[in-house]
């Protein structure tokens, strides 16, 4: 990420400590994760110690310091999805993609993650791929749904 681009994001929120989460989120939206160099630049520009930035980046589930694939699959593991078989959906994806949760496929196509409730409890089990919510899942339905994400 260009230094000027980082400046633009920081300017939008202001150089105050309370803006750090929003700034990191915006950077992540562009980069899909938080590269170390970018965090270092943010640290210098905002005059916030790197240790603090790193602490925030590792505390919040929404932030990732590990590179992610082109598409992000979030399988809901809220209570309603759990009792309706959400873990079976994770297992199926895990087997098909050959990765565990929080891992990325070798071809960088998918990153598999779990999320605790997206608030679509009536339609469980649910997964979200790049913001598209798919409800009423079964293990069998999963492969077909992933086809459109190249």
């Amino acid at each position, binding site marked *: 990420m260009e230094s000027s681009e980082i400046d633009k994001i920081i300017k939008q929120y202001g150089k105050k400590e309370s803006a750090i989460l929003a700034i990191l989120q915006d950077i992540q939206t562009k980069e899909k994760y938080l590269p170390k160099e970018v965090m270092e630049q943010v640290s210098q520009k905002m005059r916030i110690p790197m240790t603090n930035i790193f602490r925030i980046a590792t505390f919040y589930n929404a932030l990732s310091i590990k590179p992610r694939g082109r598409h992000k699959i979030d399988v809901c593991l809220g209570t309603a999805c759990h009792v309706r078989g959400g873990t079976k959906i994770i*297992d199926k994806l895990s087997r098909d993609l050959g990765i565990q949760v929080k891992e990325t496929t070798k071809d960088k196509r998918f990153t598999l993650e779990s999320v605790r409730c997206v608030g679509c409890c009536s339609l469980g089990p649910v997964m979200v791929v790049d913001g598209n919510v798919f409800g009423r899942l079964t293990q069998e339905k999963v492969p077909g749904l992933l086809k459109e994400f190249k």
Partner: protein
Amino acid sequence: MEVRTKADLEKMKEKGLKSLYPGKTKISVGMATCGLSTGAGKVYETIQKEIEKSKLPIQLSQTGCIGFCQREPVVDIFEPGKPRVFYQGVTPERSVELVHQWLDNRVVEDLLLCKMEGEDWVVEGKVKDYSVQHIPAGIDGTPHYHQVPFYSKQLKIALRNCGFINPDHIEEYVAKGGYFSLYKALFEMKPEEIIEEVKRSGLRGRGGAGFPTGSKWESCRKSKADRKFILCNADEGDPGAYMDRSVLEGDPHSVIEGMIIGAYAIGAHEGFIYVRDEYPLAIQKLRIALQEAEKAGLLGENILGSGFSLKINLFRGGGAFVCGESTALMASIEGNVGEPRAKHIHTTESGLWDLPSNLNNVETWNNIPIIISRGADWYSRIGTEGSKGTKVFSIVGKVNNTGLVEVPMGITLREIVYDVGGGIPEGKKFKAVQTGGPSGGCIPERLLDLPVDFDRLTEVGSMMGSGGMIVMDESTCMVDVAKYFMGFLKEESCGKCTSCREGTKRMYEILTEITEGRGTMDHLDLLEELGWVTAEASLCQLGGTAPNPVLSTIRYFREEYQEHILNKRCPAKVCRALLRYQILSNVCTSCGRCAKVCPAEAITGKQKTKKEKGKPFKINIEKCIKCGMCFEACKFKAIEVE
């Protein structure tokens, strides 16, 4: 349009009424997250194209969720002089049919959910009668809205506008009485009077703990400081609860109006709405609503010309459950990690940046305008002695009708599960209902006649929480549920207090031992002891309530734990390590479907063809990974789980 006087507000109301009830056919598509995930977006597009293509005299609009999420996408059609009709499970293909049939004065019967001949205007205490004169053909057998079991026991206060207005249009909110309470509060009431009214209404915090809202406001008002904050907790983290999402997506102005009234009452001029990162649509709708309110002069400098100013900022959370705790939420806004602190000094005295801060939940804020407009006397007549008003529950899990229901406090759990929820699907047996999220507990069948009320739920070892109600049947394992919550809490514990960080982890490990067949009876005593320590020695309520799912399941379902420990059996057939899959050779039709889906190649047999009969299939236990794919795939119920 800028609103400066009451006349301006009336003018905006007129404009909104024209948009809500145009003198022609209006179609609204429910486009909250639940609607969109079942294809409401495509339905909307299809109808839009059809209107343009055939030049139809129809106004198309979008709205929030009407609560019956399971039946989404829901589409409603309204035309002056006719009953309003609600369609369920609408697909893009069939949406065109609905439109044309309507114009031919007919309804599509098989998709009808209900009809409505008048609409409650709760804020003004009126019913808007549709003065029905023309009855479309085919509608006679359709139940009225209030006759549909799902809606029959509901009383909508918090969800008053969800599914009826377009959340992006501030005029439509005003048309239904919105922002008139703000006017009343600013010009006809003193701050102390507002606080008194809220106190007398008996409103208690809807976020879970049930602290009396008026008393909280009072102590914040009395705190002396130059700067104070008003905060909205929209970090709805309890898995299984999503009423706040629905309110924010369908009626964001109700929350904003409540916050402005609250800010005026306590004397705050700055505010934050802390929204969960997992709710992108709610963030979008809130952003629009805040802009619209500012543009109209209902938020910002010199609101309605009263001299009172308030700035509300939107803060996007980072996906941490603990940030729903008040002090953690404030730490997060300050730019720190969301770790709670001890609350010897209340946040109403020293909260955000050590200044007096008043935090309330989305649903609490949403109730304020109604209390101001209808008065505390009216509000406090609803509910029980200690819990006034209504509460929104998300009734989900193993129940026929799933969705958001708003019922008066005091209704029994049985009424919610069986009357509103329609009972358990597939004729299975009810086992428990889980309330209060990870801080709550599981309530067994014998306590189903318990009235829903803050104090009664706490008495039985659960809690109201934010209103998630997960119904569980005989195929839900209670040990697994306890393990599920402990897994959740172990991940979400911020790690500050050792008792919570280590306690949840150890409890999770013990529960894993039990579900994998290595449990001993001593484990139960250890769980109870660990639970007690975790609850007593943790700073915030995440740790303080963490043992509830374990303790309540041990209390009510001890036999199930014993089955796992002594007989190494999971009666609900959930705990994988204790299961065995096998094919019933007398039921197997040799179709071979199971072998095809088996990822472990553990199923063998001879598939039938047109010429040959084939042989029943068999599962090789050694190879079986117990994924359950064959069980799901078999159409003949030939696969048995033990």
